[in-house]
């Protein structure tokens, strides 16, 4: 069988940059359900999969990294005619690019709701073009007009966004503590001051000048009560949310501020009255069959959000349900437009939910990506108009770039399962309310790691979500091998959280020496990491997928390895883990070389690599312990013997440390030294520390500083590390 370019070459840096450029410029597919990859990534996968291995790189580059024009307007250009037809699964972006490359495409969607949407995009929209678009625009406008009229009681006149802050009850004094990472409403111009009552259980907020605001209540993975100073870990807060959800109530929140056109103010009684009215309406509408019901992704259930309808506060839910009612009334004669209304509601839900993190740079909520303490709410009529116009713009772009493409859509009947993320769950929920869409074809697909892919003949090319590959390593290997395939290679795309994997049919593999496997994995780690050498500020977390990319080809391509006279099946869990650990070991070495530091103690090495890959993560979910296991294994570390590694995978900085012994542990010694520097006794920072540990501490300080510089992070620990190094240089000089 002829090889394909992607088997041996994938310009990682170039594709990563182009994906980022596409996102920066506002990709049209970013607002369309089912279009999972940036078109720059989809184009690279299609182009390099369709090109033969002898294709000239120079000839491929213009399509991969165009000199002018938006990335989504770039065409693949002339390619050979074989194969005439390809099968694309899961991802509308890959289908679009394959069709633009002149292929007949069968697009397999595992979810009937998404399949229906794809039919509208690749059928009616692209066939009828402007005519369909005008009809759709008229429909969305009309819904918007009715919404403005019907929801006027729920919002004030010129309001643009509402800042809500989740709260939790202090177990000590009973205060409902606002969970705030910072005090900003609009960065640099106004902030919040929290008035804490001596009695009572609710705080009050005042909008103040930036210099008048104090710190947030969340810091370094802990919440501190502003009244009694009781402090506890965020894991306990999460459990309290879970418990509250089990009792039937979502997490409570304060309405802290209202952003109007041109001004910011505290919430007033009329604001709270409107919220109360919305609560009544939500209760009423919630009894209807229109309530969106769908399982959210697993990470949300961990926070007590057990259904997507729990992603909204009362007013958000009431307004969205009203939008469903209006859509059904307006769209009685235009049923096809309801699919698009579901797309608008999906995007609207992502920007207007209790997960839509407040963005103080712009003074409004961002798109839901993870858990949020401070969230924003948007007036739905206004937001409906904005999202509608973005979706219409996306449609217009598609009509322009996808002229004459042929895509036939079908619902999956087996085959590769496709990952189900939050936008999928929301789209399904809103489709259910608007179209009565049937349920997913196959149970349990939500956990799949596949974002999309394409295949023809005996070849398949997958785009995998790298975080899921990391968490389900054995299953991913098992699924590929179970289909009689092996990974010819595997390519991470930095900043995109994906792994591109070309698959070929398995032949009968020979027995290979363990040393050869190790050497192959190590070489691959070095090769792949070359693309990350000048990675600055972004994408470091995705470097953590490099060991998986390096280990995937041997783990799927070989059966038996010879080690010390024994023949071992490579797919025994122990052996698979060991292959992966070899990759991690090499990654650790290479990354420390990149930082140009000489830490040798495995605990210090772990600390340095963690800081480079995952930073200080005070505001985000830390990597799970499951994700950290291979790294710990590679360094032969027992997580229970690392007091600075918490159960949820968070690595404590010097600020959270209580017990700093034994000082033979260089991380303990490092933290103790930083505390001494902070307390104004830098000369004593390394007193009594054994010489070998002292050396490790100083190298670790260098590693932390350099890692932060690469990631663009600023943390007090880094500043103290700088001062520690300065002091040590001074002492050495004396």
């Amino acid at each position, binding site marked *: 069988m002829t090889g394909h370019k992607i088997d041996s070459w994938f310009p990682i840096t170039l594709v990563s940059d182009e994906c980022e450029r596409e996102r920066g410029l506002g990709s049209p597919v970013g607002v369309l359900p089912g279009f999972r990859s940036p078109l720059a990534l989809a184009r690279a996968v299609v182009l390099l999969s369709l090109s033969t291995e002898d294709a000239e790189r120079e000839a491929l580059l213009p399509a991969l990294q165009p*000199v002018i024009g938006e990335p989504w307007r770039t065409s693949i250009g002339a390619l050979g005619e074989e194969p005439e037809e390809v099968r694309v699964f899961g991802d509308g972006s890959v289908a679009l690019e394959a069709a633009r490359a002149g292929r007949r495409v069968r697009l397999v969607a595992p979810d009937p709701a998404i399949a229906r949407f794809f039919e509208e995009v690749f059928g009616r929209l692209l066939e009828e073009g402007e005519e369909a678009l005008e009809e759709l625009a008229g429909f969305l406008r009309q819904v918007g007009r009715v919404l403005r009229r019907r929801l006027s009681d729920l919002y004030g006149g010129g309001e643009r966004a509402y800042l809500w802050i989740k709260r939790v009850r202090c177990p000590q004094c009973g205060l409902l503590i606002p969970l705030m990472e*910072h005090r900003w409403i609009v960065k640099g111009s106004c902030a919040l001051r929290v008035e804490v009552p001596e009695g009572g259980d609710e705080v009050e907020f005042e909008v103040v000048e930036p210099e008048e605001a104090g710190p947030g209540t969340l810091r370094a993975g802990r919440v501190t009560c502003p009244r009694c100073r009781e402090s506890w870990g965020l894991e306990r807060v999460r459990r309290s949310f879970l418990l509250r959800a089990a009792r039937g109530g979502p997490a409570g929140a304060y309405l802290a501020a209202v952003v109007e056109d041109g001004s910011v103010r505290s919430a007033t009684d009329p604001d709270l009255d409107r919220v109360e009215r919305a609560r009544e309406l939500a209760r009423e509408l919630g009894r209807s069959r229109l309530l969106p019901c769908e399982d959210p992704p697993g990470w949300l259930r961990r926070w007590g959000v057990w259904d997507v309808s729990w992603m909204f506060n009362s007013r958000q839910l009431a307004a969205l349900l009203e939008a469903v009612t209006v859509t059904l009334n307006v769209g009685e004669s235009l049923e096809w437009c309801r699919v698009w209304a579901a797309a608008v509601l999906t995007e609207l839900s992502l920007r207007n939910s209790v997960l839509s993190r407040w963005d103080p740079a712009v003074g409004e909520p961002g798109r839901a*990506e993870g858990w949020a303490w401070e969230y924003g709410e948007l007036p739905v009529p206004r937001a409906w108009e904005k999202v509608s116009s973005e979706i219409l713009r996306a449609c217009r772009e598609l009509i322009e770039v996808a002229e004459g493409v042929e895509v036939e859509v079908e619902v999956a009947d087996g085959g590769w399962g496709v990952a189900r993320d939050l936008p999928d769950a929301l789209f399904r929920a809103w489709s259910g309310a608007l179209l009565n869409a049937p349920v997913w074809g196959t149970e349990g697909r939500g956990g799949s790691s596949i974002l999309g892919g394409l295949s023809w003949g005996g070849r398949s090319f997958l785009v995998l979500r790298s975080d899921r590959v990391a968490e389900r390593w054995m299953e991913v290997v098992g699924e590929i091998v179970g289909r009689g395939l092996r990974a010819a290679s595997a390519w991470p795309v930095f900043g995109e959280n994906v792994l591109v994997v070309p698959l070929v049919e398995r032949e009968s593999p020979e027995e290979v020496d363990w040393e050869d496997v190790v050497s192959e994995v190590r070489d691959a780690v070095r090769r792949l990491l070359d693309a990350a050498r*000048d990675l*600055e500020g972004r994408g470091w977390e995705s470097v953590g997928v490099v060991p998986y990319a390096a280990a995937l080809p041997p783990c799927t391509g070989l059966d038996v390895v010879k080690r010390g006279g024994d023949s071992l099946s490579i797919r025994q869990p122990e052996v698979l883990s060991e292959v992966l650990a070899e990759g991690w070991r090499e990654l650790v070495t290479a990354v420390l070389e990149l930082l140009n530091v000489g830490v040798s103690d495995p605990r210090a090495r772990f600390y340095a690599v963690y800081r480079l890959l995952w930073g*200080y993560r005070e505001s985000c979910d830390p990597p799970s312990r499951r994700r950290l296991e291979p790294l710990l294994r590679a360094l032969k570390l027992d997580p229970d013997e690392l007091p600075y590694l918490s159960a949820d995978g968070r690595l404590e900085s010097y600020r959270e440390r209580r017990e700093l012994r034994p000082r033979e542990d260089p991380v303990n010694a490092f933290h103790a030294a930083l505390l001494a520097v902070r307390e104004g006794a830098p000369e004593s920072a390394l007193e009594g520390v054994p010489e070998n540990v002292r050396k490790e501490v100083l190298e670790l300080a260098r590693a932390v500083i350099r890692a932060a510089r690469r990631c*663009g*992070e600023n943390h007090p620990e880094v500043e103290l590390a700088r001062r520690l190094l300065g002091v040590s240089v001074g002492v050495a000089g004396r």
Partner: protein
Amino acid sequence: MSRGDESDVPARLRERLCSFRGVVLDADVFAALVGAFSDDLCEAPTDNVVYAFLLELRRLMGERFVLYSYEELQAKYAEIVRELADERVVCDDCPASPVSPTVRGLCHLFRSHKEVRVPRLLSRSGLLEQLERLYRELLRAGCTCPPEFRDFKHDFVEGRAGDEHVHVANVLVAAVKRAVLVTSDRRIKDVCDRLKPGCLCIRLDRECVRDPTQEELRLELAPELGGLPSELRYRRVAGGFAP
């Protein structure tokens, strides 16, 4: 996704800047920099907002801050240095002299620079069609140079490239190299807005470039990037950016 406190403009700007590889400075911006040195040779300038901005740009871009230059651009820089510094105040023993002669203090910016061969870049077959389109747009915008792209190329090969050639080549080099193009020319910014080349055009307010002693520098970004306003202000004293 976000790390630490990334919700402010400088952090976003940094994130965006780090997806570009290198910087191209146009001659006017270079002149503004050199102007700051002409009085006090070998002293770091204290009152030059353009210089302060470029140092900040270098800090934000980290190792990606590499200045691209080519023969004709260097000649232009050298000419500016001669005009403004009148040879007497030129520092000849500059440790890194991409423009020769240059002024000490600019070394901070020019320490890492890469030379580009424009004729080679213009003859890359895969890029030709797109470069021609970009060239035509620049021509239409009034950035005068030969009406035919092939003549433009030919002039570089023959060593006959003039000021206008340099002006246009800056954009082409930045687009191909995925660099940040720092200019004060509105026409170039408009072309970048319209055509969306692979570079990021930062247009500095012409008044600030003419008089870099001001405290504040107004700048525009083209094309517009998500999460960032299209116009920013850089304050020398505060050392930061604001919308």
